[in-house]
């Protein structure tokens, strides 16, 4: 295994003083991997991503990005350190055209060259290139998700965090979206993803973690974890939906 | 000087207390940012003055007409502007109050900046009668005492009525609308009708306050009804407490004691600077209280929310 891009140790976080949503989460993402975090509603999956990007201030534990602590930094600084984040909802600038969305994405690292990064993104997501002047608010759900990913990829992050990339998509487009995620990964991007659609997400992941009540419950190789009947019974419920 | 001075402060506290009851009913209990209260007060006061002076009405009949006209004003503002989001509604009500003031200042019928004079004869008669009675217990020298008594009597009666109303299912609907008007509408309540009622009652309260202002200043001129006075009302509200009628009483007494109390200090400042200083103090009140204790002294933080 190559270097560890992202490591959390005993991460504790919550939105209000008394209540912690994360009660000690430890995960490792190595370079080039797709790692998926699954778990029931309220397990703290989205909160984990928000803590990593700095939207929720961690109360305990540590977060290392390429060996450097990022815990407690504001989101803009964390993005500059090389973390890309795609929120689940409202993840594009609706009033702006696709190309301006991508331009905003490059703000943390303008030195990479706008033209070069735009071309790279349009190669990865040809559909966006066809519609570069179209206002993002008029895109379909799947296209928005692609634009949101491309925006987060503009500054060449060391790792991309995806918060339920298939939420709300028609089931028939779910596989397409997962294929897109796999393509991004093949292009050399490390991915940490949170998903409700546990079976399919784990099947395409190198490794997976199961969270419950804000703690690590299980971990293992993705496909194996997806097939583990104990995990399925306890946490995943509708694996065959 | 001192007793007369504090009686006057009491009169102001009572008048603005009545005025602010309406703001409490709007901002505190149904979540309406009514910033046009000074405009309703102006309508009430000018109606009284003009009906008595120009049309020879009785002062008391004119009071009723003034209340009615202010309510009509409230309904007009409400029907036209209630569907706006809360901050736009606030701006629209300020604009309404400014239009009222501009009309009074510039139109022929209202006497412009010369104002309206000579409407309070009936009150003087009553006041003299009261002073004669007060003289029997040795209080006959305090000429503003009858007004003080009348104002506070009215204030306390209106306060009691509103407290009782707030405890009824009607009051509960108001609070539901304050918390979330869509959810309340989804439960079958006619949000618009309740907001309109709340606004109309607030306008009526403003008209009563305007009546007492007219008696207190003895002649009416437009700048008495500057929007700044609505801001004073809100300063009282935020001081005493949101969603609490008791807070209006406390806020009124504290606010006017503190504000007028500044007159008692000898300073090297010019009269203009002293006047400015009073407004600066009010400004700091609003800033500091909004920041440090937004619910006010008697208010309940859980009940303090206005959504956009």
């Amino acid at each position, binding site marked *: 295994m190559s270097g560890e891009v992202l490591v959390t140790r005993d991460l504790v976080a919550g939105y209000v003083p008394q209540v912690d949503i994360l009660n000690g989460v430890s995960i490792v993402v190595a370079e080039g991997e797709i790692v998926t975090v699954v778990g029931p509603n309220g397990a703290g999956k989205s909160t984990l991503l928000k803590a990593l990007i700095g939207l929720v201030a961690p109360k305990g534990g540590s977060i290392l990005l390429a060996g450097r602590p990022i815990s407690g930094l504001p989101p803009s600084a964390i993005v500059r350190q090389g973390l890309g984040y795609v929120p689940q909802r409202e993840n594009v600038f609706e009033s702006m055209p696709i190309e301006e969305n991508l*331009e905003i994405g490059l703000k943390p690292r303008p030195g990479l060259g706008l033209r070069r990064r735009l071309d790279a993104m349009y190669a990865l997501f040809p559909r966006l290139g066809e519609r570069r002047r179209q206002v993002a608010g008029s895109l379909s759900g799947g296209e928005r998700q692609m634009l949101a990913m491309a925006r987060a990829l503009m500054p060449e992050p060391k790792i991309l965090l995806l918060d339920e990339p298939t939420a709300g998509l028609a089931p028939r487009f779910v596989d397409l979206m997962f294929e897109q995620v796999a393509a991004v990964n093949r292009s050399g991007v490390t991915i940490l993803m949170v998903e409700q659609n546990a079976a399919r997400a784990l099947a395409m992941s190198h490794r997976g973690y199961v969270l419950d009540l804000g703690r690590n419950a299980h971990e293992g190789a993705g496909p194996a974890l997806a097939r583990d009947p104990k995990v399925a019974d306890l946490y995943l419920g509708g694996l065959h939906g | 000087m001192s007793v007369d001075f504090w009686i006057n402060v009491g009169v102001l506290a009572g008048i603005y207390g009545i005025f602010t009851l309406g703001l409490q009913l709007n901002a505190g209990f149904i979540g309406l940012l009514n910033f046009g209260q000074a405009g309703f007060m102006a309508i009430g006061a000018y109606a009284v003055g003009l009906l008595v002076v120009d049309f020879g009405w009785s002062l008391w009949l004119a009071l009723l007409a003034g209340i009615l006209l202010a309510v009509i004003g409230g309904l007009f503002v409400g029907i036209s502007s209630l569907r706006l989001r809360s901050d736009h509604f606030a701006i629209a009500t300020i604009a309404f109050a400014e239009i009222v003031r501009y009309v009074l200042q*510039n139109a022929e019928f209202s006497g412009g900046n010369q104002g309206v004079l000579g409407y309070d004869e009936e009150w003087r008669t009553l006041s003299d009668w009261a002073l004669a009675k007060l003289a029997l217990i040795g209080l006959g020298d305090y000429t503003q005492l009858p007004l003080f008594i009348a104002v506070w009597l009215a204030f306390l009666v209106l306060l009691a009525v509103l407290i009782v109303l707030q405890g009824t299912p009607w009051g509960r609907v108001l609070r539901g609308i304050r918390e979330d008007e869509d959810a309340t509408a989804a439960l079958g309540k006619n949000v618009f009708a309740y907001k309109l009622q709340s606004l109309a009652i607030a306008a009526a309260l403003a008209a009563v306050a305007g009546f007492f202002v007219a008696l207190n200043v003895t002649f009416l001129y437009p700048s008495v009804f500057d929007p700044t006075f609505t801001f004073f009302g809100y300063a009282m509200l935020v001081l005493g407490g949101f969603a609490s009628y008791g807070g209006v009483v406390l806020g009124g007494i504290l606010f006017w004691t503190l504000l007028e109390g500044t007159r008692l200090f000898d300073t090297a400042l010019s009269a203009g600077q002293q006047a400015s200083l009073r407004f600066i103090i009010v400004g*700091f009140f609003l800033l500091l209280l909004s920041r440090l204790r937004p619910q006010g002294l008697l208010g309940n933080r859980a009940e303090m929310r206005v959504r956009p």
Partner: protein
Amino acid sequence: MAGSNEAGKADALQPHGAGTLRLSRPVLLLLVIVVLFAALVALYGFDATAQATVNGLVAGGYLGLGAIGLSLILGILKLVNFAHGDLLVAGAYFTILFGWLGLPLVVAMLFAMIATAALAVLTEKVVWQPLRQAGAGTLQLFLSAIGLALVLRFGIQFFAGSQVRTLGADIVSSITIGPIHLGTLQAVALVTGLVVMAVVGLALRFTGIGKEMRAFADNRALAEVSGINTRRIIDVTWAASGFLAALAGILYAVAIGSFNPNFGVTLLLSLFAATVLGGIGNAYGALIGGLVIGLSQEWSTLLLNARWKPAVGFALLILMLLLMPQGIFGKARRRS
């Protein structure tokens, strides 16, 4: 931004009445202006109408520039900055202060704009940022804004007095172009206003910071996780707001000639009218809105006594809120 709207095969939302809806309001506005102008020419003659129009453009300059900051702050921070009118006043009085310290007038004006920008940033640091962090609601923000407005207005009055003042520039010389008479200073105010308007519009459209500001106004949370330094954007917005407000105040002082510390509060509702007219948060809209309000107020002097001018502004504000709360250039937002 018009933006092409090709129908995508997989689009859940399909275009409907392609673009006509979006174009119609500005076009309608232009039409109304042209028709009104023609009507006024017919009723009052070309000379009087042209004079009122030029006066309206002068007023539109300072109203438009004054409204930009109000609109941006309202759009980006969701804050009804009631103290904005007093920033205009601060600009004029800082100019007097720096002139009194011996600086030449133009330099004093520039310093005044910088000082007002600093003042605006200061209010952000001292008042607004802490309030936002405390999760203040609409009412708290509104009351704080009123409190701040009172402190600023009467603070200026405390030090400078409430008497009428001038900037001490030459107010006598004038230009005559055909039937139109214009004070030299008014002409300067007109040209400055229009030029700065164009510069601001272009800056928002094409510069990096302009795009970041628009992104921030569009979706604040997303801007933050996209790596935009939102603190910086907020500070820049306040600085620009203060700077342009001061310029607007100075242009007002120059064009009108004399003023007292109350002129900001008098202009405030007209500035709100311009903001709402242009669509909240839309800087171009604010500029156009300012021009429309300026024209309306000056044109109204052909019909009514000039003393009703401010009331025309208030009435337009109420009308706009009632008839077109999303403004000419704003979009009707879908309820979430």
